[in-house]
């Protein structure tokens, strides 16, 4: 009986991240529009876009290979699995032990690897520019992310996200300098990884500075729908990650009753909304930076993460 409940909760989580991801993207767009005194598209516009894209035929470049057609499914699968393993409303999910924090980061790395290859597949100059810059950004964002993992893992004594969240919600953590540094670093990495302003502009489609949009330029129809859905899920994943590590209140522990789960889901949606609002606020208040300023931005994140890890290596109580 307990196993069935666990399975149901795990399934619920998979469906929840899939269903909420476009909503979060739509919410951020709406808030950004309202902050600029525009009406903005309705909240459900991303769902409509996805449904429309799915129904349309795929227009494939003449020399696109099988890799170009397989990549969207692979990217979607890797991102979905990663997003399903982050504790959103409940810790200790049935399969949470199959992958820890490092694996989740690496799964996103796999998705990016194939996205960058897909950008090179058709052999156009825009695809190449996108892939090349994406790998440049990743070469700094990934080490920064690993440093953040180290910091939180050294505080919590495990790289398992469920264990981390359970530990961080307990009273023995307190305020720590290292966790503060890690939070800042994580926010910076999240902005870069999700191609948000000031690193990249998610609303652009013809700009010499675009990175993510340049890679996916040749995609259309259902392939594009999957890529967009994966991008939304990645944004949701990072917001969930920040929420579960740094705002872990409201997370239901594994033994919780069914009624508690509802509270957990409500708390999670409230956290997503707060995260989305803050992201929109940040994006409207800052200008996009030049591509070669990005390494400085991410280098700062890397240094913050390294500093936090060093502090913990020196003293476990910092």
């Amino acid at each position, binding site marked *: 009986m307990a196993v069935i409940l666990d399975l149901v909760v795990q399934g619920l989580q998979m469906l929840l991240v899939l269903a909420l991801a476009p909503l979060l993207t739509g919410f951020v767009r709406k808030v950004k529009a309202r902050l600029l005194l525009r009406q903005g598209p309705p909240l459900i516009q991303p769902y409509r876009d996805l449904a429309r894209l799915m*129904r349309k*035929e*795929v*227009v*494939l*470049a*003449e020399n696109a*290979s*099988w890799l170009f057609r397989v990549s969207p*499914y*692979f990217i*979607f*699968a*890797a991102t*979905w699995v990663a997003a399903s393993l982050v504790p959103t409303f409940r810790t200790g999910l049935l*399969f949470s*032990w*199959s*992958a820890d924090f*490092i*694996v989740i980061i*690496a*799964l996103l*790395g*796999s998705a990016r*690897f194939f996205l960058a*290859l897909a950008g*090179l597949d*058709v*052999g*156009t*100059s*825009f695809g190449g520019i996108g*892939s*090349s810059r994406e790998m*440049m950004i*990743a*070469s*700094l964002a990934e*080490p920064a992310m*690993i*440093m953040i993992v*180290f910091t939180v893992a050294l505080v919590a*004594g*495990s*790289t*398992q996200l469920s264990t981390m969240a359970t530990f961080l919600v307990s009273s023995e953590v307190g305020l720590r300098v290292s966790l503060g540094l890690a939070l800042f670093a994580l926010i910076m990495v999240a902005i870069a990884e999700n191609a948000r302003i000031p690193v990249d502009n998610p609303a652009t489609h013809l700009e010499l500075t675009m990175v993510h949009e340049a890679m996916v*330029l*040749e995609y259309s129809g*259902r392939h594009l*729908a*999957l890529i967009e859905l994966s991008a939304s899920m990645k944004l949701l994943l990072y917001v969930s990650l920040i929420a579960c590590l740094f705002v872990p209140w409201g997370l239901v522990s594994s033994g919780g009753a069914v009624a508690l789960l509802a509270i957990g889901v409500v708390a999670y949606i409230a956290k997503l909304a707060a995260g989305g609002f803050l992201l929109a606020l940040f994006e409207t208040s800052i200008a996009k930076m030049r591509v070669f300023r990005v390494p400085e931005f991410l280098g700062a994140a*890397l240094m913050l*993460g*390294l500093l936090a*890890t*060093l502090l913990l*290596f*020196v003293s*476990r109580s910092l």
Partner: protein
Amino acid sequence: MPELREVVIVSAVRTPMISASMMSQRDFAASRGSVSIVFSLAGFLYFGLGIVSGPLADRWGSRSLALIGMILTGLGLALAFRAHGMALAAALALTAGLLHVFNHSIFKSLLFFGAGAVLASTGERDMERLGGLIHRMPQTAFVFLVGCAAISALPPLNGFVSEWLTFQAILLSPQIPSWGLKLLVPAVGALLALSAALAAACFVKAFGVTFLGRARTPAAEHAGETDRFSLAAMFFLAALCLVAGILPGFFIDALAPVVQSLVGARMPVQSGVDWLSIVPIAESRSSYNGLLVFLFMLLSGALAAWAIHRLASDKVRRAPPWDCGYPDASPATQYTASSFAQPIRRVFGTVVFRAREQVDMPPPGALQPARLTVEMRDLVWDALYAPIAGGVGFAADRLNHLQFLTIRQFLSLVFAALVLLLLVLAIWP
């Protein structure tokens, strides 16, 4: 940069020597912390080398270094843990290093076979003159892609497992009382992550420029698939990459006797863990299950493909590429290896490689072409290997005239040498 290949060869020769000298060091207690720091630094140095050559070098062979750095880090950490009496942690670090040696031997062989197949089929060694081979050599492309993903430490393949184990070992190192190591190890961790990310960039470039895009030369355009036996060998290695990635517990257990004999402890038995997960340290409750991750990915990808094709649309139309409305028919407009590496060269290369770019733009109306020249220097080569090579060359030049002596001079030389050796023998205590 022709020197890079030589760097690879030199370091490839030196690495087993260092490992061998480390392993033969029976008396660990005498070595204590200092030796282990030195070895961690050796790992560190190799990282430096790996990063420098990783995404920048344009030759097939020059990619081993980041991975050798990773192996050495595992071994260095094992020594440090062993010197401070942390046998279990030493076993974990050593297992990570050895598993990486094993993994490295699989995917590196696969990549060399793939490179050989491309060379045999096109006669081209320079990837700037290839492109689009995925259409001509689809099976080689597939296995080469597996090798690229494995070497870039992407789950669920095998390279990731050893990287994950190394990270777990690094996370145990704050317990080491030595202050030098406390400050060194986080930096090594950051460099490990950096070299993994740069390896991914390097292999996106290698695969993307060689196999994807459009053919840049007729040789690439008329390439054919390689023979069945080569393919079988490559498919076998690719399958091994996957198996070692999703069932790492069996390989860790197979390494246990070696680890036991070297550090006096072994990792807990992995093949008995539920669901074939790997749990390196019981207390930290960190676990990884490559099999489940692989199955989940397979299931969700297949589910998405089935649902979309069944419920939405499965129509495909071929059309010219879009490229924001300005597609160019010439394959020369594609990104090349050097243009792909340009952002990374600009971020890292200006410091570690003293990379300088010079743009020579003729004024409007002038007929000469615009030129971009990149100048790079390999500082490690300049500081470490060039003096040795220069010294050997200098001595060889000086001694050259010994070859043109007369028979009398040769005989007196032999006599002098004999007297000198006898004198040494007599004076020697």
